């Protein structure tokens, strides 16, 4: 207790130096907090998107560029045991225009079952019907953001918009899929599959959403679909069948890699901060040689002196840690306010970086403290 008070006192005695000493730790800790907050924010966003898929939905993606996968091929998945419904899709980016207002959105060409498979709700109007597909109808269902951008508060149903220059009739507007999805989920335009294929100028199917009958048998269905895909495509590297769980795993493994990298850069900056502390502590020891001599003369043991300097460096580093956490949180807050990007604070990361900075204080304080404690009282007293 007394030793901590003494340490605080000697730090207070030279505030600017103390601050500069802590700077390395402050920068290290605050950058970790900011990076983790932003990183986890985006990871959470991705996970929410994946989460919105539903636990009974599989995504079949065709990734190979030199394979053919047409609508008829996709329909074979419908016949797989345990599959309730499928929604083949083709996607691309298009410019949508209403009068003078235009916006870039993602286009999805799909069939009538998409609404049910993706578990979406209509805000007004109707969804795509099978007939629209057969007729290559130029009709469109707008995502809620797209509708708002182009029509404001008015009802777009019955109006027409220009998609890449061609006129389309709006038949429906989707309910927002929620803010957690971020902006891209609602900035969409959905058209019949056949129409979408024209817009994307391809007859290939990019991905198929598959709704299974029984959630518990999803792994079994997934394996059957894999087999079917193999017979169609013939190359295991050109397609993937993934459940929500698989996607989550991929996302979290990306997250782990990122955490590891963040941890590494944090460790480096904290070590640099630690060297700064050691440097100043060594200066402090030599400046205070006389004081050490006096303390020893009146009865301080080696351990007392060691503890005094060690606690001083720990107080410095943990103060740096606390300030770093504070600055980190504030900067992350400013970042999210300025850019609108989602962030997520991680209390364990904050605690960990604080503990780590404390540890840095111990590790880099030991050498100067030991040096101080080993001074001979007479030599120290004679020092001017």
């Amino acid at each position: 207790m007394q030793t901590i008070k003494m340490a605080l006192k000697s730090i207070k005695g030279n505030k600017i130096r103390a601050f500069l000493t802590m700077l390395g730790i402050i920068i290290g800790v605050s950058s970790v907090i900011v990076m983790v907050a932003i990183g986890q924010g985006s990871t959470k966003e991705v996970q929410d998107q994946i989460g919105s898929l539903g636990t009974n939905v599989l995504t079949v993606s065709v990734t190979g560029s030199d394979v053919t996968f047409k609508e008829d091929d996709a329909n074979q998945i419908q016949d797989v045991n345990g599959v309730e419904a499928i929604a083949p899709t083709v996607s691309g980016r298009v410019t949508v225009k209403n009068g003078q207002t235009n916006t870039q959105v993602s286009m999805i060409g799909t069939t009538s079952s998409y609404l049910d498979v993706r578990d979406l709700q209509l805000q007004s109007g109707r969804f795509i019907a099978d007939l629209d597909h057969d007729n290559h109808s130029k009709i469109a269902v707008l995502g809620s953001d797209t509708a708002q951008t182009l029509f404001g508060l008015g009802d777009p149903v019955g109006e027409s918009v220009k998609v890449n220059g061609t006129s389309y009739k709006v038949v429906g507007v989707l309910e927002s899929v929620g803010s957690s999805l971020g902006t891209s989920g609602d900035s969409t335009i959905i058209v019949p599959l056949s129409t979408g294929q024209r817009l994307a100028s391809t007859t290939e199917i990019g991905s198929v959403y598959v709704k299974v009958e029984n959630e518990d048998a999803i792994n079994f269905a997934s394996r059957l679909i894999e087999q079917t895909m193999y017979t169609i495509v013939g190359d295991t590297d050109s397609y993937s069948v993934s459940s929500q769980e698989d996607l989550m795993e991929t996302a979290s493994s990306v997250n782990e890699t990122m955490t590891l990298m963040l941890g590494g850069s944090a460790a480096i900056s904290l070590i640099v901060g630690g060297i700064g502390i050691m440097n100043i502590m060594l200066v402090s020891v030599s400046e205070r040689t006389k004081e050490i001599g006096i303390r020893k003369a009146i009865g301080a043991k080696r351990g007392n002196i060691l503890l005094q300097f060690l606690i001083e460096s720990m107080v410095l580093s943990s103060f740096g840690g606390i300030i770093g956490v504070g600055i980190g949180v504030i900067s992350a807050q400013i970042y999210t306010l300025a850019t609108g990007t989602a962030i997520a604070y991680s209390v364990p990361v904050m605690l960990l970086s604080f503990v780590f900075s404390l540890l840095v204080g111990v590790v880099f304080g030991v050498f100067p403290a030991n040096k101080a404690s080993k001074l001979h009282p007479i030599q120290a007293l004679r020092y001017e």
Partner: protein
Amino acid sequence: MIIHEPIIQIKSMKKMYELGGETVMALQSVSLDIQKGDFISIIGPSGSGKSTFMNMIGCLDRPDSGEYFLDSEEVGKMKSSQLAAIRNKKIGFIFQNFNLIPKLTAFENVELPLIYREMKAAERREIALGALKKVGLADRANHLPTQLSGGQQQRVAIARALAGNPPILLADEPTGALDSKTSKEILEIMNSLNEQGHTIILITHDLEVAKRANRVVRIHDGQLYENGGEWFADNKNGTEEH
């Protein structure tokens, strides 16, 4: 009041220093007994070995050979941590240049030896304030050393030496940095402390200062002579050598 019971017994103590290949016999076979409650001064010119001797008595350093009993404990061969404990309990140091810690207030300087005794804060406070009162500085408890005059600083140092209530007060040239008027004040405090029962060892090169003691020993080239007072009175050749 002198009790005839030695508090310090030194027999054939030797200490030499090596400096650039040359050996200096700072103490050559010094023997000295000091009785409890005595006021002794050790006088000698600069470089005669006074500080070396004080470091030995004060357990700040270990002799090369010889015996040293302090309060009937053989301290000559103790480990440095044991010596630290002995210094803390048995000896109060008063230095020529005060040696107060500049960042600490008078009160905090005085309580320092008690902190190393792991005494509770309330008790420390009481004792430290009592010691400051004894040297007449109770009203300056919260002043920093730089806010005090030389004489006041030395009184704080005396209070610090007193705080632990050690049997021995060891003063190395305590008036060396003070003018004659303040010197007199400090020496009067020393005299009154001796009357209160403290054993005082005063190291000086100044005969006037040395004469305050009951007993004066002389040190010259690392050797000790009993008749310090008379020798200086007869020869008048100590002080100017300083």
